[in-house]
């Protein structure tokens, strides 16, 4: 059996009266693209910072590639790269210098390291900014610098804490291409993001946290398929007008929302579609078209957390 890339065992973090993490236990398998999801204040960043050694757990242990992050922190940190959520700057050093210095902290120097830094700068489209200072860069570029800093020692496990927050679409795409490439090369990627479509597209497994508790831990596809609902989007004819509170109760109970794309209903998976069509017909609903689909990760997430991301 493989050593987990990251293993959380009964990790608890207490801040005064607040339990930020409540005995969290789970493993992340090596090579997995793993999503750590949850609403604001769920404990995602606390869990990541505890893994990174920036926060001390009140109790419990975390191992990265078999190395305890407290007792064997040197080896744990050598195998872990963290892209923090907050943008960080340094007013004294150029991007290239920062990367060289950061590599030095890990005991890395010489021609091979310089070559890797060149490659990182190139892959993250920072080559022409190598001599710039961090405060001269845009937010998106600063984010890329943080990714380069996290990868300077070529860690096996890369943690990205909200890497696309405030980043434009182009850069987001570049970042995901780069991250997917790292994943293909065997790196374990742990991602927190508020963009759940991205998490659904990228993550093989997800953990959902809420108020410091682990609410779900599954492969993304199982989590979605296990969801007890499917969704039916009904497109009424252009002339059809209706009020939600005038619909029969069975439809009102299943009504989710209405927008320019139609009316969305949530149905129990085992309910025959005919029943729904019958209720729509009985209600005099003038249906022009309809589409049925499974739940998205976002809908599963909302169902589990009861909160809007």
């Amino acid at each position: 059996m493989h050593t987990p890339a990251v293993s959380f065992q009964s990790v608890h973090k207490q801040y005064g009266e607040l339990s930020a993490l409540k005995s969290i236990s789970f493993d992340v398998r090596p090579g997995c693209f793993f999503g750590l999801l949850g609403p604001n204040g769920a404990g995602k960043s606390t869990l990541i910072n505890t893994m990174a050694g920036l926060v001390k757990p009140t109790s419990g242990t975390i191992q990265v590639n078999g190395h305890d992050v407290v007792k064997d922190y040197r080896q744990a940190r050598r195998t872990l790269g963290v892209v923090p959520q907050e943008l960080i700057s340094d007013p004294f050093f150029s991007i290239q210098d920062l990367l060289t210095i950061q590599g030095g902290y890990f005991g890395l120097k010489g021609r091979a390291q310089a070559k890797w830094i060149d490659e990182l700068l190139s892959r993250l489209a920072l080559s022409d900014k190598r001599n710039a200072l961090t405060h001269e860069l845009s937010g998106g570029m600063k984010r890329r610098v943080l990714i380069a800093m996290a990868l300077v020692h070529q860690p096996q496990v890369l943690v990205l804490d909200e890497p696309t927050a405030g980043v434009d679409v182009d850069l987001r795409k570049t970042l995901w291409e780069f991250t997917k490439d790292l994943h293909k090369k065997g790196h374990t990627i742990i991602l927190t993001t508020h963009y759940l479509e991205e998490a659904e597209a990228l993550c093989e497994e997800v953990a959902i946290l809420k108020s410091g508790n682990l609410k779900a831990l599954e492969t993304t596809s199982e989590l979605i398929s296990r969801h007890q609902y499917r969704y039916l989007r009904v497109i009424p004819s252009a002339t059809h007008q209706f009020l939600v509170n005038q619909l029969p109760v069975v439809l009102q109970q299943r009504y989710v929302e209405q927008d320019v794309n139609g009316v969305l209903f949530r149905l129990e998976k085992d309910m025959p579609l005919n029943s729904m069509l019958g209720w729509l017909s009985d209600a005099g609903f003038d249906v022009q078209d309809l589409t049925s689909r499974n739940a998205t990760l976002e809908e599963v997430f909302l169902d589990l957390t009861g909160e809007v991301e």
Partner: protein
Amino acid sequence: MQMNWVGCWALFMKEVRRFYSVAVQTIFAPVVASLLYLLIFGQVIEARMDVYTGLSYSQFIIPGLVMMTILQNAFSNTSSSLIQSKMHGNLTFVMLSPISPLELYLAFVSASIVRGLAVGLGVLVVGIWGFDIVWQSPMWILLFAVLSAAVMGGVGMTAGILADKYDHLAAFQNFIIIPLTFLSGVFYSIHALPEFWQVFSHFNPFFYMVDGFRFGFFNQSDVSVLFSLAITVLFLVAVTVINLILLYKGVKIRH
């Protein structure tokens, strides 16, 4: 546990390059400030104060001024670097690396010694050039310069760790460091003071650093040089222990 010397060196060099990149502020300005003290105090007090036999007042205060600049700049180096790193968030880069608390301490304090010595040397060179200064025991001079810079680098680190904002650091510097350096015998021999202030001076650890350092120049001091050395080493050990406890516990750094 095996030391990560490459990492420690990388952090040390970063700290040295940091202050060197703003050398006007970190090296030249303190040298000029000390020379102004020399010019003003030397001229005004020269004829009014007796110090050691055979020495002019200006000759007397030069070692004191050199030590004062060493102390204040060694303190500034670690304290300002740490608070800036905390404010900009880039201390996180060090915290995410495999650098141990001991390596972090050694790197920061060593860089503060380099800055202290660089500024002190600047004052000394001008002092030698303008006044007839000789050194009787270069080894004592170097020993006290390095140890005192290390002590103040360590004190600066404690202040930098504990401070949450620049205001805290300014208070520490203005209400503790500057008064203690000014009252350490930089500008006078404590024998010229009333008895109460002589006794008071003996409770100021900076006094022993200045006095021992001055011994290296004149072979004369207010207290035994070995006693000054013992106090300085004791102070260094205490500061080191306090910093290592703070760093290992992660006080105000790891939450």
